[in-house]
Structures are given as structure tokens and as C-alpha cells.
């Protein structure tokens, strides 16, 4: 059993200045508030192993348009809270009232979170690097597994990209966009879903390499 696994209520430290994410303070002591792995860096934080995506300023997310309004869009970002994309944050200049000519309900976009306020109103922008997704395939995995899908220094995602020749875009909210040849997209999607299933195992990069090579051989 891992020593660093915590459950809610576990005592982490007696120094309240160290309290980070996934912790709370009571009686001058720091306790864990969620199930997760303790990271004792500059601050003590608990990296959650479960839970919903909570938007954070600076995150790049894949969103789905769920409402078109006069001068903004309402976007689902795979979180308990909806986000808002104002027309001024659209890459092109558009006039109020013309929103429906640019993005319709159900369309997917890549956007960046610019701000989250205390009432959890989330604002998005498509101005730096954002775009609409009009081809390829989208899969969804738990956002807690995203670091695993990327791998150390991007090793995992680069492996899948090279092996399948697909464009893969991994967003912070657990959605992954894959674009490329149809059968290779399927293979990449299978590999990513396998990563989600086996996120806790050792030597995952090798497992995935083997998985892709075997799948390719079978297809020939």
C-alpha cells in the first residue's frame, strides 16, 4: 500500500502556511479533504484521484456550444459550471446579433479560460490559439488522468502521435481531440482509453507502445 495515499480527514502537517489544494485547516493543523496522493513540494497539496473538473484561469479546454445568445455563447466545459464566450473573444471581429453565423449549438471549440470568479462564472477566450473543431474525433477521459495521457515531458502523447500519425490535442478538462486517418484515429482513441483504464500501472508507455504495434500488425 502506498504511504502517500490519503483519505479525507488525514492529518498532513502542523504548519498552516503549507496548506495547498485538496486540504483544509482546522485547529492550526492541515488535513486532507479529498482522496488522493500527497505532494509535499513547496506547499502540501493532495492531487485528487477522482472528482469533477474545476475550471482554473489559464486552462486550455475543449468546449461544446450549448446556447447561442445575442452577444455571447454558452459553453459546456465538462464541469459543473457553464462557461461564457463573449463575441469580443472570438478570433474574428463580429457584430452583436451575428453569433449564430459563426458558432452553432453542438459545435466544439478549443478555448482558454481567462477568469473564474467567486460565483463560478467562467469566461473563455478564443483569441490566443483558440479555434473551432470541425473534423476528427473527440474522446473524453477523467481529467485526473490527463497528466498520465501526456506523460513526462510529453513522452506518452508524442509516442501516440508518432505511431498513428494523428494530430492529438489534449485539454485540461479531460477531452481529447484526435484528427487523422480514420483507422489511425480509432487506434489512438483505443490507446488513450487504455491509458485511462491502466493509469496506475508501471511502465505504461511501454505497454502502450506494444499495444499500438500489435494492433498495427493485426491490421496488416
Amino acid at each position, binding site marked *: *500500500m*502506498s504511504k*502517500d*495515499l490519503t*483519505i*479525507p*480527514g488525514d492529518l498532513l502537517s502542523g504548519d498552516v502556511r503549507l496548506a495547498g489544494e*485538496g486540504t*483544509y485547516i*482546522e485547529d492550526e493543523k492541515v*488535513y486532507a*479533504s*479529498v*482522496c*488522493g*496522493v500527497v505532494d509535499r513540494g513547496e506547499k502540501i497539496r493532495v492531487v*485528487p*484521484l*477522482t*472528482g*469533477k473538473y*474545476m475550471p482554473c484561469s489559464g486552462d486550455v479546454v475543449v468546449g461544446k456550444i450549448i446556447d447561442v445568445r445575442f452577444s455571447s455563447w454558452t459553453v459546456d466545459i465538462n464541469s*459543473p*459550471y457553464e462557461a461564457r464566450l463573449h463575441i469580443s473573444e472570438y478570433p474574428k471581429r463580429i457584430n452583436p446579433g451575428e453569433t449564430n453565423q459563426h458558432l452553432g449549438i453542438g459545435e466544439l471549440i478549443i478555448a482558454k479560460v481567462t477568469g473564474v470568479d*467567486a*460565483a*463560478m462564472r467562467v469566461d473563455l477566450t478564443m483569441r490566443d490559439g483558440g479555434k473551432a473543431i470541425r473534423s476528427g474525433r473527440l474522446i473524453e477521459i477523467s481529467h485526473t488522468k490527463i497528466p498520465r495521457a501526456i506523460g513526462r515531458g510529453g513522452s506518452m502523447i508524442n509516442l501516440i502521435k508518432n505511431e498513428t500519425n494523428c494530430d492529438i490535442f489534449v485539454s485540461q478538462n479531460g477531452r481529447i481531440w484526435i484528427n487523422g486517418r480514420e483507422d489511425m484515429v480509432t487506434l489512438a482513441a483505443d490507446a488513450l482509453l487504455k491509458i485511462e483504464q491502466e*493509469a*496506475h*500501472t*508501471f511502465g505504461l508507455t511501454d505497454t502502450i507502445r506494444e499495444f499500438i504495434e500489435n494492433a498495427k500488425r493485426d491490421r496488416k
Partner: protein
Amino acid sequence: MKGKPEKLIVKGKRLDGRKLDELRPVKIEVGVLKRADGSCYLEIGKNKVMAAVYGPREVHPRHVQEATRAIVRYRYNMASFSVEDRKRPGPDRRSVEISKVSRESFEPMVIKECFPKAAVDIFVEILQADAGTRTAGINAASLALADAGIPMRGLVSSCAAGKVDGQIILDPMKEEDNYGEADMPIAMVAPDNITLLQMDGHFTKDEFKQAFELAKKGCAQIYEMQRQALIAKYGAEGKR
């Protein structure tokens, strides 16, 4: 149903062979429902309960939402086949009360400020009942909340103490509940946050103290089992 047995305690042993301060055997499994955000299946003796947690999610109807914190909703429901005589399905006076006290046993422990305007919905379904279903439901719901990743100040553990044949016992089963003299379920978060305390029947002041201490000990045992269940689910993932 069978009539009252002559004696509920024979030579220091109870009808099912337990000692006075012994819990029924417990089985816990976390994360059993795929479509729920968190779930738990729990058995204690002949009780079988399933808990599911959904959320944080949008609140409907809108007017019950809170601007600065999440709301917690709890539904305790007994399946019509959970007892010997078919129970009329749907909420009744008893289950509405249990839902309320169970919700209140969680409200101070869930860190609601993390999710303004959202709702955390807890559903507890009693599949088979044999006295002590509210405590079993709370134990399962607590694990389902942790499984859903809802920030909490600690795991809520719950256990009852009772009095039969003039003696204080831990975790009464159906016969002891039906023919006993008192039943007192409590819920707590270690070390000393009592979030539920109910009592049915009569205790003297000393008996009450004794029963309360015994129930607390039961909660501590339950807590250890809850902890193991979570480690069994997340231990492998945390190892990496």
C-alpha cells in the same frame, strides 16, 4: 413473523452468537456504479444498501440554489422488497425523517464553499433491511462522497447501540431492535464530532453514557473498515 424469543441474550452471547460489543460482519465495495460520480455498496449483517452520489452539479429547481455554497440533498429510500411484508413504495413519514437527519449528519462535514451554486445529491437505496439501515446508509454514503471526490472534513461513520434484557449492546439486529428496550444510532467524524444522535426507548443516565461510549467504539471500528475500502479502491492508483 416469529414471536418474541424468551431471551435475547443467553450466557453473554446474542441470538446470532455475537458478543455484546461486537459488530455484525461488514462487506464494503466502493465505486460499483459506472454512471454515478461516486458509489458504494455496503452490507452489515443482513442489511444491504447501495449509495450513489451525483455532483457537484447544476441545481434544479433553480430557486433552491445558494450563491456562495453547494447544497446537499439526501434521499433515503427503502425498496419495496427490503422487508418481510412488502413495503408500500415511495417516501413516507419515516423515510423523510431519516433523509433529513442523515443529510444533517453530512452537511457540517462536506466543504460546501468549494462549489457555489451547485448541488451534491446523495441517494441511498435500502435493498435489504435488518435494523440499522440509517447507519448503514450513512456509512455507504460517506464512502460514495469520497469516491465522487467531494471535499470533506473527514469520513462520517455511523453505528447504533441498544439495550436488550437490561444490557447495553452494540449494533442491534432486527430481533433486538423489535423486542429490545432502547436503540440509539449515532454518526460521527473522528475524534469527537457527533453529527447524528437519536434515541428510541429508555436509558438511565448511566446507561446512556455507557451506550454512547459503546456506539463511539463501534464507529471507530467502522471507520477503519471504511478506510480500508477506500485504500483498496485507490491504493493501486496512488502507488505510481
